[in-house]
């Protein structure tokens, strides 16, 4: 009898959240199958940060690994949440867009290549403002182009979560996988408090934040696909499953009539109770996921 059978699962568990972007990306690809592209030693860094007294990073906070998942061609693009909050700048955006475009090109030429986006990001890097915003629009366009041929799988694990313009990119994905610790929303609580007042959103109310933006809520209301434990093996297995599943029958961002009706049915005279919303939006069947 091996020792392993006596070690409880929670001890064996390896946290995905504790890994940096590079290690997270590596953990999702078949061992030995991947190569990093435009990595740290290429030294393609932000030309805008040093001018503003901010230390750049050799990979501009974006890691691109090309390889295979479950034997199928895939590219994993990961944002480093610890560098400038994972925000999108000229270079990190260019790397993400280029990788998506190359995956689309390969897919069109017969080699279907899925993309996995590890989004730990606050959105636009304010120190690059209009170039950051422009590049997010380009990422969105590239996701939509690749999405015609191969699935785009977004994983949001935390602790930064996925906010700002990149939440729109997440919304365009074929599938969204989240942990309980993760959050997904267009505007962070601080921004809402700032723009619309503390009554609208008290950004110190952590319970409220997770009740609205947290992974469990997003999955329960049907706007994200799967809630996963913060465990490297489980997340890797989940990503594999979605790569294998291929394209959904209909992407969520094309289900207009359904969502338009849901919005029309909301009682807007008061704030919306997140738990009640789960009930009224519960999907009857997993119509989006290919079997």
């Amino acid at each position: 009898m091996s020792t392993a059978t006596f070690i409880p699962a929670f001890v064996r568990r390896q946290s995905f959240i504790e890994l940096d972007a590079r290690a997270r990306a590596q953990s999702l690809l078949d061992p030995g199958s991947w190569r990093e592209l435009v990595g740290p030693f290429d030294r393609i860094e932000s030309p805008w940060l040093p001018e503003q007294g901010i230390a750049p990073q050799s990979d501009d906070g974006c890691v691109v690994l090309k390889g295979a998942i479950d034997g199928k061609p895939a590219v994993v693009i990961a944002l480093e949440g610890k560098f400038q909050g994972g925000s999108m700048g000229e270079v990190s955006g260019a790397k993400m867009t280029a990788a998506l475009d190359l995956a689309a090109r390969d897919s069109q030429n017969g080699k279907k290549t899925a993309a996995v986006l590890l989004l730990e990001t606050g959105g636009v890097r304010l120190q690059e403002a209009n170039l950051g915003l422009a590049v997010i629009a380009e990422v969105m366009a590239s996701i939509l182009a690749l999405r015609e041929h191969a699935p785009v799988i977004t994983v949001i694990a935390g602790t930064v979560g996925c906010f700002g313009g990149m939440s729109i990119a997440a919304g365009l994905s074929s599938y969204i996988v989240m942990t309980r610790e993760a959050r997904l929303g267009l505007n962070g609580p601080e921004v809402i408090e700032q723009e619309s007042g503390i009554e609208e959103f008290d950004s110190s109310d952590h319970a409220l934040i997770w009740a609205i933006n947290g992974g469990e809520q997003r999955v329960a209301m049907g706007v994200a696909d799967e809630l996963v434990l913060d465990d490297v093996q489980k997340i890797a297995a989940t990503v594999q499953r979605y790569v294998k599943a291929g394209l959904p029958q209909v992407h969520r961002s094309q289900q207009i009539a359904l969502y338009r009706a849901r919005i029309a049915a909301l009682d807007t005279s008061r704030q919306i109770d997140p738990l009640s919303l789960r009930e009224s939006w519960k999907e009857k069947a997993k119509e989006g996921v290919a079997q």
Partner: protein
Amino acid sequence: MSLQVGLRGKAWFQVFTGKNSPMAGDPGSVLTADAKLGEDMARFLCVVPNPEGRFPCARRAEVGLEESYTLATRIREAIEQDKNGEKRPIIAIVDVKSQAYGRREETAAIFLATATAADAYASARMKGHPVIALVMGNAISGGFLTHGYQANRILAFDDAGVVIHAMHKEAAARITLRTVAELELLGHRIAPLSYDIHDYAKLGLLHKLLHVEDPDTPSQTTLSQVQKELIDAVADARAGSRDLSNRLTSEGARGMRRVGLLARARMEEQWAKA
């Protein structure tokens, strides 16, 4: 800026289309109409203030939940109607305060709503509809990503009231712990940070900056001038590709996005060998 945000857009929508109310069943914040533009019938879309809106945080020309799903519906309608024929131009008149900053919006997944509208715009473009964004006021952050930034060509009025940016000056000043004056100074030095449309024009994303005499109350001459620019932009879009690659091959991009272009080229080189 002399007019309240969103009212310039409303005024122009009316001179382009002769209409000033939403299509049947649509909320008061989204105006959609088909109108003649040169030889084409084009679909014009505009987000405008709606003080009676159901959502308190989306009454002043913000792009919120209803606005996003309405835009998506009207764009997809045009795509469906044109699927076997000539693809009509889609003209986004952009004069939006921002996205809607509200708790109801976050609860009801505005990230998905905005994605749905952007998806519709991009799908129209990818199917061969020339999509043109005409920025005549604010085009900020998520509002612009949703309504306008998926266009084949972006035109903007050359006017102090026209601001394309990732965050309002006041909010950006607060977050970066600077004064508005300091931010403006920084923008003069570093073009991507600038709030001035002339600096935005240096980035190579804008197709054309339009000098318009009377942007708030356009005369017939002004209307004809701008219509001609739209017609030219439509033709230019039709002659080009259906993706956003023109933003990377412009003179501005080659100057201001040199390092990003280097990253792309290096990625392509290494991808082939990986």
